[in-house]
């Protein structure tokens, strides 16, 4: 372990030199290649210790110590955390490209074309690193207008996988569930603008992994979190295509129940407008028309026939509470039921 810690410390020092020191201008191809080798070493260290609390703590302590020393040496020093270790290669790239002393020859290697015939295996890995990255990013952008081939976009699907993998890791460590909740908050509750994208990521996380037919503990955790996050659930219900909502309801009982509860809540907040002769959303309810609301109920019952009878009984009970009138505009439940029976 001692050797591992020493290597991690050296690798972090190397990152600092790559970012802040003019000594980097002396690096030749082999040095460059070795630097990337050490960056990949850090990635292995992460893989080995990220689910091992004790090991992780020791590495974190070492990182704190090295960070403190480097802070003294470099004024603008940016600390390296344990979660940075799996991205060390990228951090090294960032460090190199932001260092004004980076020789143009090194840039040409990084932005060159992949040379499969290169003599040095590692050097081969380094050559064209940036070029390939640019190509991949550009290719994604070029294909982006043609998305829509599946219910969830490719980027949301990948992000969903990343989310679940990290959640799995956090929950398997037996750590405080608050940590996992904090993680979900930090990546999913970003802004109003990003809310729709977060809906897609959650959908992907819930649908992709459920292919095997078994609901994982991480999915269960995510569903519990979603039940508490009414805003997110509301957003999902009002923006996702009905086919996706049906898939989610079919795959997860918890989602089905939460979604049904949300629909009832939104319906209860509707007011009948005498002027328009129509039920209209009020308060915090999403701006769904009455017809759309009926379609949501209908889709949900289609996806989960087992829910239909109990749910209809429940809606009927609510109608009775409203006085059990059959005239339109007196009870939203009565009007929904009559629409559903058409």
């Amino acid at each position: 372990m001692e050797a591992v810690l020493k290597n991690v410390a050296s690798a972090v020092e190397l990152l600092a030199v790559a970012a802040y020191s003019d000594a980097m201008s002396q690096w030749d191809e082999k040095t460059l290649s070795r630097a990337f080798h050490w960056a990949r070493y850090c990635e292995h260290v992460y893989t080995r210790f990220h689910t091992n609390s004790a090991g992780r703590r020791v590495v974190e302590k070492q990182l704190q110590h090295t960070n403190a020393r480097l802070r003294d040496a470099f004024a603008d020093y940016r600390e390296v955390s344990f979660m940075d270790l799996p991205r060390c290669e990228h951090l090294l790239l960032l460090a190199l490209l932001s260092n004004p002393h980076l020789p143009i020859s090194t840039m040409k290697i990084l932005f060159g074309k992949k040379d499969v015939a290169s003599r040095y295996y590692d050097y081969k890995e380094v050559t064209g690193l940036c070029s390939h990255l640019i190509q991949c990013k550009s290719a994604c952008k070029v294909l982006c207008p043609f998305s829509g081939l599946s219910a969830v976009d490719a980027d949301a699907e990948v992000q969903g996988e990343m989310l679940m993998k990290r959640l799995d890791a956090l929950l398997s460590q037996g750590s405080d569930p608050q940590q996992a909740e904090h993680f979900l908050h930090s990546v999913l509750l970003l802004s109003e603008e990003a809310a729709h994208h977060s809906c897609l990521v959650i959908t992907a996380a819930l649908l992709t992994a459920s292919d095997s037919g078994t609901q994982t503990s991480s999915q269960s955790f995510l569903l519990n979190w979603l039940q508490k996050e009414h805003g997110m659930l509301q957003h999902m219900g009002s923006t996702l295509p009905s086919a996706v909502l049906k898939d989610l309801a079919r795959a997860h009982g918890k989602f089905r129940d939460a979604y049904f509860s949300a629909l009832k809540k939104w319906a209860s907040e509707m007011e009948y407008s005498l002027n328009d002769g129509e039920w209209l959303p009020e308060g915090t309810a999403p701006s769904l028309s009455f017809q759309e609301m009926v379609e949501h109920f209908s889709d949900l019952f289609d996806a989960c026939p087992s829910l239909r009878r109990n749910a209809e009984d429940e809606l009927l009970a609510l109608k009775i509470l409203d006085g059990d009138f059959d005239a339109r505009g007196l009870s939203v439940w009565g009007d929904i039921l009559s629409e559903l029976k058409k």
Partner: protein
Amino acid sequence: MTELQQPLSQLQETSEPLLDAQKMQFWLDKAVAWDQAGGAHAQKDILRHLRGLTDFLKQVLAQISNIGSTAESMKELPFLGQIVGRLCWNPYVTVGDTNRGLLLQCLWGLYSENPSNAVERKANQWIRKVLCRLATEEENPAAEILMKSTGVPPKEYHLRVLKKMVKQHQENIGKTCCPKKSTDPSCRCSCDVIQTTSEAFVPLIDCPEASPVICSLLQHPGTSFTDALSEDFLDALNSTDSNLALDETALVSVWYHSLPRLEEAVLDLLESVISTGSAPQNLEQQVLKTQLPKACAHHCSMFLVVNDIFRSILRQAEGNLVVQSVIQTFTRCFLKELEELEPQAKTYICTFTMNNNLLSAGKSQTSTSLKAFFPQSPPSLLVPLLTLPSEMPQEAWKNHLEWLTASLQRLTEQEEEEEDSQSSRSHHNGFETWFLLVQCSHWVQVAGELLVTSEAEPCSPLLWLLTFYYHPTNRWHCRAAHLEEAKKAWSHLHALSSSSVVSPTADHLQPLITLLSPKPQPPSPAPLLTLSLTVYSAVFCRLPHSQSVEFFHTVVHAAGLHHEAACVLRSLQHRLNEGSCSSSDTVHVRITKLQSTVTHMQAGGNSHTALNSRAQEDTPAVTKLSVKKQPLAHVRPLAEFPHNINASHSAEAE
């Protein structure tokens, strides 16, 4: 050497006149418009101009390298920074290897190692900033936060997204077509999806991660499925400089749609065989590995084009044994593939071999499908020549060869008579007759073997066949003279192989060595005919091994034709090892001994004799062909062939 380190001189050579302000303004307007506009129209405009952009960037690069400094470049090429800067952020431009490489080269060209003024220092800073942002900037903040929180590096993230997108497109193509798409003609694919997907993947044609979709798009050559491919997609396939990572079916489809790609595959095969000097066993593997024989068996039009390429190469490299050997091997492999595909083609050949009435068989039983593949070959000779010696009893070989020779003689005489009356068609027919013999040169080898083993008369038709093979044209009316020389050589060899002299001296061999030496005036038969006769004699004569090896060594060494001798030996050995063709162990031992003699001679250097160096200069026979990778103008696009094979070939003849 990376794309960024290519010598600029290469680009300068191809560059056009200097760029003017108008041209710069045009590309600036384009770069700005592409930057600002979105949607399908802008995408189409970008795709339409990608190739023009490549030429423009090459010109920019050439001009930058001619100008001494960045400051001057900026002055001479107005808006250059703006154009390059904007293009760097256009994904349609940066996704392709060629344009991305050129853009980066432009940036390197504008970078000053030793900046001497503020403009150059500013340019350097700007270039560093652009490159850093290009490689590391994330446009999607949500994705960036998730990457950081989950420890996923951007390289992995973007690659995963791209692969997922590619998979979705692939699945969409799969859904579009029913499972029986390739076999059931009644099953119609949705052309729209194919059209849209092929359009979307035009800029990604050389992106390795996109190859699964490109392969899927090209899965079924010649069906309505691939007919729906967009023109831009097919153009991009033709013009990309990169190697495409395609599976077998897709590769065949690329050949079907792209003549330059097919041409490239054939020339690559020839070049690799010439550079490696493969043994016939390896040659066969090499030929099969290219998938060309299989593709040609499936697509007659492809076979016709490949043969057109061979014809063109043969005309450039008359007497090149390696090229002839490739053509023979290719034809044999092609026939095997065709037999698997169309067993009836083989049935005709087998029927022919069972039938003793050779003349009538040759005339009446030529398969229709074979005729389509060999439209220019004399029909009467087609099946008799395509039949492999191993498919016929050995006792029938002599009669068969005599019949073949008589037919060839008759055809050539007829053609020569017509030639005298200035008909260009007769010359064309003469070439086609000889080309078919080159494709089926196994019979030439059998003729060489029989010449020795049956102790044929010097005026034997077999000798005429060999002479015709090595001297197909009756240029300067020299055939009679060539035949005389061949008879002389054969008489010497015959005398040597039946001689009781234990060790023939140089005097004994001198007449033969003289025949092998190239002569300046016509008639000047290439030494290859005499050499082949020498090889056949050494292999099949009744002399003890040691004597045969000794005279072979003396003659070949003195003539300096080591490579050529090795080539003839290898071809012969391959034919003898092939199929049911059984020859005695003695012959195999003999060939092995002769081969090791040649290897020894080659290892010992070949600079001992004056004749040797002369022979190397004068004989382009084995190694001295450089295959020019230039479009062969006479070869027409494949799509023309399937509908009107004969018409297109008549045009070719004219």
